[in-house]
Each structure stands twice: as structure tokens, then as C-alpha cells.
């Protein structure tokens, strides 16, 4: 069980997003209606702390547990890919009220109906893979 530590991090993440109500369909609706600071506070504080953390990692040349320099992966460039892909994801996010993390959390929190959403997401990923070369990136 050399990956046990990742499972423990997952448990912490699942509890955090549950107790923070980030998995609530209502909180996502509230966010897309700009009617509360809650979700912006969650994402905003995570990003501000994340920026400080990554700057610290880069400036101190911090090493990871195996003694390698920590590298933070960069994202794929392209307006079409990020804007169209992002928009399609956003449409789904506002329907399910959950991005991928919360979809998994909701399986544990609410039960099996959310396995249908996971199934849908796997089917969507598969469909993207089929048409990847024909889509603008």
C-alpha cells in the first residue's frame, strides 16, 4: 500500500469539500448568480495561498520527499482548447452542480445516483478521445 498516503489526502479533500459545502448544487448556483462570497472565498483563498506556496517552492528550490526539485506542470496553450473546452465543462458544472472532485465526493455523500454522473463523465472523456484530432485546439 505505498499509495496509502494519497488515499489519506483524498479523505481530507473529500471531507473539506463536503464540510465547506463546495459539493452543494445550491452553492454552485449561488456562485453563478453572484449572490454570495462563499465560493469565491474558497477558490480565492486557495489560489492566493497556492500562489504564495508555489513562489516559495520556486524561490527556495524546495525538494520533494524523494529529494527531486519540485516541478509544477504547465498547461497546454491554445485559445480554442481552453475556451471551448472550458465552456463545455462550465455548462456541465452548472447542471450537475459539481466539478470532477465533487462528483466523486457525492458518490460517497449521496450514494449511487452519482455513479451515473461518473459514467456520463467517462463517456464524455471517451467521446473527446474519439474526436480529439478533428477538434480545433
Amino acid at each position, binding site marked *: 500500500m505505498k499509495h496509502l498516503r494519497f488515499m489519506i489526502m483524498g479523505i481530507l479533500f473529500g471531507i473539506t469539500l463536503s464540510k465547506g459545502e463546495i459539493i452543494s448544487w445550491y452553492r454552485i448556483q449561488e456562485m453563478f448568480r453572484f449572490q454570495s462570497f462563499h465560493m469565491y472565498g474558497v477558490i480565492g483563498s486557495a489560489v492566493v495561498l497556492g500562489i504564495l506556496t508555489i513562489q516559495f517552492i520556486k524561490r527556495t528550490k524546495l525538494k520533494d520527499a524523494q529529494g527531486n526539485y519540485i516541478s509544477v506542470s504547465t498547461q497546454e496553450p491554445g485559445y480554442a482548447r*481552453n475556451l471551448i473546452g472550458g465552456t463545455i465543462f462550465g455548462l456541465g458544472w452548472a447542471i450537475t452542480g459539481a466539478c470532477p472532485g465533487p462528483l466523486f465526493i457525492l458518490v460517497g455523500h449521496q450514494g449511487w445516483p452519482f455513479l451515473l454522473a461518473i459514467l456520463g463523465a467517462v463517456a464524455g472523456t471517451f467521446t473527446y478521445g474519439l474526436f480529439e484530432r478533428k477538434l480545433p485546439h
Partner: protein
Amino acid sequence: MEKILTFIQQPWPWWVSGPLIAYVMFSLLYFGKGFGISTNFKTVCCMLGSCKVSDFFCFNWRDQVWNLMFIIGVVLGGFVAAHYLTPDMTVAISASTVNDLKEIGIVNPGTSYLPEEIFGSDNIWSLRSLVFLVGGGFLVGFGTRYANGCTSGHAISGLSNLQYWSLIAVVGFFIGGLLMTHLILPYLIAL
């Protein structure tokens, strides 16, 4: 001990949840991994043999076992939170959200984590519920792979790493979310 449990059982404010998310991202980096949850959908496709139909799914899924363990933990975390840490499932959303949602046909906004009439297991085989779960899930899976990341990869990791293309992706997330919420969702709820 009981006092601590009662304290944890309250809803957590944003300034507790947000920093903990940043901590999870840092822990993954410290153990040599990148925070990216939607990648697991791709891994599942690969494990199911999708490599036969598209090169996109040809990679060694064993490199992603840590991430699958992470999401197993995520599911467990949701279970623990629901069954042991949340005696009161009401979500204190704003009064204006409650009103707006009532207007488009949601029965009791905020009395639980999500609308039972759509996501509850009693109504699951209705057309509306299948559209919300399977249809919504499909868009999430397709869109995150197209954009190469979801909220964890783009909004949290990408923005933290000051990535321009993640900002563009997050702009996309909001374009889609706003279009759905304000233009399309009322029709889906009316199904």
C-alpha cells in the same frame, strides 16, 4: 473530545476550506504529484481498453494508480462527512438564491445539499434526472478533457502557478456556467 466533534460538525467557512485545498495541492506536489482530478476519467477509459480505438488513451495507467487511490479516498471522505460529521444538512444559501431557484421550480432550496427531486434516488429514472446526471456528467467529462483540466488542474493549480492558459480556461468555465444557469437551466428543470 465531544466539543471538538461538535465544532467540526458545523459548516466550515471559506477561510477553512480554501486553505485546506491549497494544503492538499502542496502535499501532492511534495510527494511528486500534480493535482488533477479529471485525469482519472481518462485513466478509467484507458483501463477499459480505449487504446484500441484512440491513441489518446494509450499510456501506462499504472502511473496513475496514486490518483485512483486519491479519488477512492475522496469518495470515503464524502461518506465520512455525510454519515458522521454533518448532523444538519441545511445549506445557508442567500435569500436571493432561494427566491430565484423557487421561481424556476426548485421545491425547497437550501434544505439539503442538493434538490432531492432531481438527484434523490427515488426519482432517478426520470428523464430530467438522467439529463442532469448523465448529460451533465458527459459535458463535464468532455469539456475537462478538451480543456485538459478541471477546477483542480486549472482554477487551483494553474492559477496558483500563474498560468495564462488556465486563466483562459477559467474564463471558459464561467462562460459555460453563466450560460447554463441563466439561459438553459430553467428549461432543463421544467423537463
